[in-house]
């Protein structure tokens, strides 16, 4: 079931620069398990879209199948949504984006949806640099079917039934980097301070922005021996804090000189990275990002933050050379060559 929120609006609720209140970005009440990491991510998406801001109806939210893919019902109730089939959200998002490049596309997927059944589509949407924000809510297990290991479960991590996963894990952030993703970030559902600015930065990126968000499954994967439990993730996190400064805001120097790196996005907004957390490589260096992920991994740690960005790569529309006018707005006169042209085609076939 989906529960609707009451329509009551607080008369003095703060509005963003577009005149929307925070409530305008909310969805129906979540039916996920109490304490699910996914709900924190939904809240972060709401916060990021409200704060950026983006008008809710200019966002399209898409998902596949699984617990994560149910979440678009729980945020952005004024946006059109598409809950598609298992592992196939990338293709639906690709078609949607081709039809209208003027909207903002948020795809929500899970580790089963992206690393197993949809691994192929994930790989190819990365390659095409589709302009979208792609969030994987990664909990290392299949929640809706009651806790089977997924392909992102670490080798040796124990399932709720006690058996250790014998297979190598797929690290989606590394895969995305290897396939040419132009924005790769990792975060933790419990680290809202980091997650919200990362989502804002992802939404501002023109190209494929990938966020791998560790999001513990409180019901099936939150026990001792699991490497995706809240306690394990918190204890093994190397978080690189991120700030997002929207276009309009003046940059306030709240950090010590020399302790931050600024990345200016194409829309003029700025992402600020804090060097005091061990993220010392150049985030525009793909190989350095891959090395950093691997080094942390070898040390049993997980690096979070903005891991890589390429601000200049052309997105799919630029590659294809499509019209700046949304394709779904074109009319007969733009699209039908007419009977005279057809007559000449006929003549050429005689």
């Amino acid at each position, binding site marked *: 079931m*989906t529960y609707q929120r009451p329509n009551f609006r607080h008369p003095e609720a703060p509005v963003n620069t577009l005149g929307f209140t925070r409530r305008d970005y909310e969805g*129906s009440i979540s039916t996920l398990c109490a304490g699910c990491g996914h709900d924190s991510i939904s809240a972060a998406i709401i916060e990021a879209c409200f704060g950026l801001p983006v008008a*809710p*109806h200019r966002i399209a*939210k*898409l998902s596949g199948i699984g617990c994560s893919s149910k979440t*678009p*019902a729980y945020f952005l*109730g*004024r*946006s*059109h*949504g*598409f*809950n*598609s*089939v298992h592992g*196939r959200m*990338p*293709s*639906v*998002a*690709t*078609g*949607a*984006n*081709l*039809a*209208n490049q*003027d*909207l903002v596309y948020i795809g929500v997927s899970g580790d089963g949806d992206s690393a197993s059944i949809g691994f*192929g*589509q994930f*790989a*190819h949407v990365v390659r095409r640099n589709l302009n979208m924000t792609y969030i994987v809510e990664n909990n290392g297990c299949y929640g809706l079917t009651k806790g089977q290991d997924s392909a992102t479960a670490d080798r040796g991590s124990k399932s709720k039934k006690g058996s250790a996963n014998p297979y190598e894990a797929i690290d989606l952030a590394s895969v995305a980097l290897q396939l040419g993703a132009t924005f790769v970030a990792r975060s933790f559902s419990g680290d809202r301070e980091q997650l919200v600015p990362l989502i804002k930065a992802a939404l501002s990126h023109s190209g494929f922005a990938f966020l791998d968000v560790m999001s513990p499954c409180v019901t099936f994967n939150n026990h001792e021996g699991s490497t995706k439990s809240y306690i394990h993730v918190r204890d093994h996190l190397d978080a690189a804090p991120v700030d997002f400064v929207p276009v309009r805001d003046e940059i306030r120097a709240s950090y010590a000189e020399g302790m931050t790196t600024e990345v200016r996005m194409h829309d003029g907004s700025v992402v600020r990275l804090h060097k005091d957390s061990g993220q010392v490589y150049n985030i525009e260096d793909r190989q350095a990002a891959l090395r950093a992920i691997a080094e942390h991994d070898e040390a049993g740690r997980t690096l979070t933050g903005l891991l890589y960005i390429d601000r200049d790569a052309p997105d*799919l*529309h630029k590659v*294809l*050379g*499509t*019209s*700046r*006018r949304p*394709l*779904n707005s*074109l009319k*007969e006169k*733009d*699209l*039908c*060559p*007419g*009977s005279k*042209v*057809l*007559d000449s*085609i*006929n003549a050429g*076939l*005689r």
Partner: protein
Amino acid sequence: MRAKQAINDFVVKFANVNGTGSASANSLFAKSIFRMGIPVSPRNIFPSNIQGLPTWYEVRVSHKGYLGRRGGVDLMVCVNPQSMDRDVREVEPGGYFVYDSTKPIEPRLIRDDVNYIGLPLTEICLREYTDARQRLLFKNMIYVGALSALLQIEFQVLKDLISDQFKGKEKLISPNIHALELGHQYAMKHFDCPLGLRLARGGNIAPHILGIDHILMDGNTATGLGAVYGGATVMAWYPITPSTSVAEAFERYCARMRIDPGTGQKNYAIVQAEDELSAIGMVIGAAWNGARSFTATSGPGLSLMGEFLGLAYFAEIPTVLVDVQRAGPSTGMPTRTQQSDILAAAYASHGDTKHVLLFPATPAECFSLTVQAFDLAERLQTPVIMLTDLELGMNDCMSPPLEFDDDYRFDRGKVLDAEALDKLQGRFGRYLDVDGDGIPYRTLPGAHPTKGAFTARGTSRDEYAVYTEDGEAYVRNVDRLLRKFETAKTCVPAPKIKPASRPTKTGALFFGTTASPSYEALEILEEEGYAIDTLRLRAFPFTREVEQFLNDHDTVFVIEQNRDGQMRRLLLNESNAATREKLVSVLNYDGLPITARHIAGHIRTRLGGANVTSIARKRSGSARSKA
């Protein structure tokens, strides 16, 4: 020995090795006959291979305008030693066998009821050309030149075609014409030209053929062009024979006709997807977002697209899919034709699903039905699958010209824009049956700041697109989908019905590429005194005309190209007037197009003279006994 005599009425077959450039020479042969105003239907019978295997090209010439396969070969041009044994066997008694006589023909290949015509093709090439590639390519032009003498093709027509073909590469014109002349001269010098089989402009050509300014075009090209005129802006596809050339044609025409004159940008997007699942996913995503979009595939791709087709059916998203059928099951015979995806397409996906199907029979109809497919998909908010096949899709077919009405406007169906949403009273219900026709109203993403948003989903939902597991809401929804399918019966193209010359209780029903040989077979049978009404089906669900036709006849032959009589089964499933006793299958499923002889033979045997008027039976009885 008897030598076949016929003017503008015979079958020529070429036996070649694939990858040797024979295709363009053979199509030059066919096109020259077409340019002489004589009905011709060429077909490529090719292997799933790039180089070195036997390949055939069969050209039927028919003054009556019969374009289906007749069956049998009157003149075989064999330039492939690998297949010579079977090629000789295929020639009809009194027919001709043209071969490369550089080496003497083996005695075991000599039949005493066949006329042999030796052309020293290799010898001429060795003498004329030093380059190995030229020797290979011009060999083909030499036999076409020889045929122009043997069959009386107007040489000027060949020369004009060569000039057209090599426009922009003028250097190539004279060597090609020279090769044609070499063959022509050799034949003139060594044989009595023309043969008993020959071509003649005008003459005996049926008047109804002369009245139409025909074109020669393959169905896939017409389909791709139809998608341009139908307003498709997003195309996603995955390469698969025999549908690939739909995407290629769409791209070629878009590159010519869909470039924004002001900006030079493309008013279309084409993506070669990673697989068929992704291709149909992109189509659905684009359609959900308001762009006309489509994909083209063949059997294996249709299977892969099944899950997504169920989603598009249930989430009610306009989706256009072209299935150029080939011989299944599984990989089957990828370069052979069949009509064997009928049931798989009609009921693609799990659960209770049904899809609208269209069955074009000519390139002109591939064009017009593709345009219509987009209207139907958007009007009905559901997948529309156009089923063609390799025979129609990949072969040049003589067709009436393509037609387009400049007053045509897209039928975008029930879409509420910002203005309509502003006026909307009460809550927007994406799946509310406001008009009672089962078709709800939809909105496009981004349309309105506060109204009309909903989540499209493959899960059960109520009238307001809210997820529900309530059984009653589920039943209301799937029953409405059925009501919508009833509405579809009033929108899809009606069948073409052709009554026999006298009242009859016997009918024949066919569709797509089965139509042409069926009409021919029934004309043969009519001359023998049989009376059979015909119905050419153009769509599923079945319209009331189909029901009426089934009601009006005691026996209906359902002619189709698959093993299981799939259209017959679909009729039994979906039509109230169909019964097992009434519907009689006439089938062909060897991967080659069904022939008129096969159809006529089958129906004749089944009717056993029961339907024949007595005078006609006597007359035709003697005529048929010779055949």
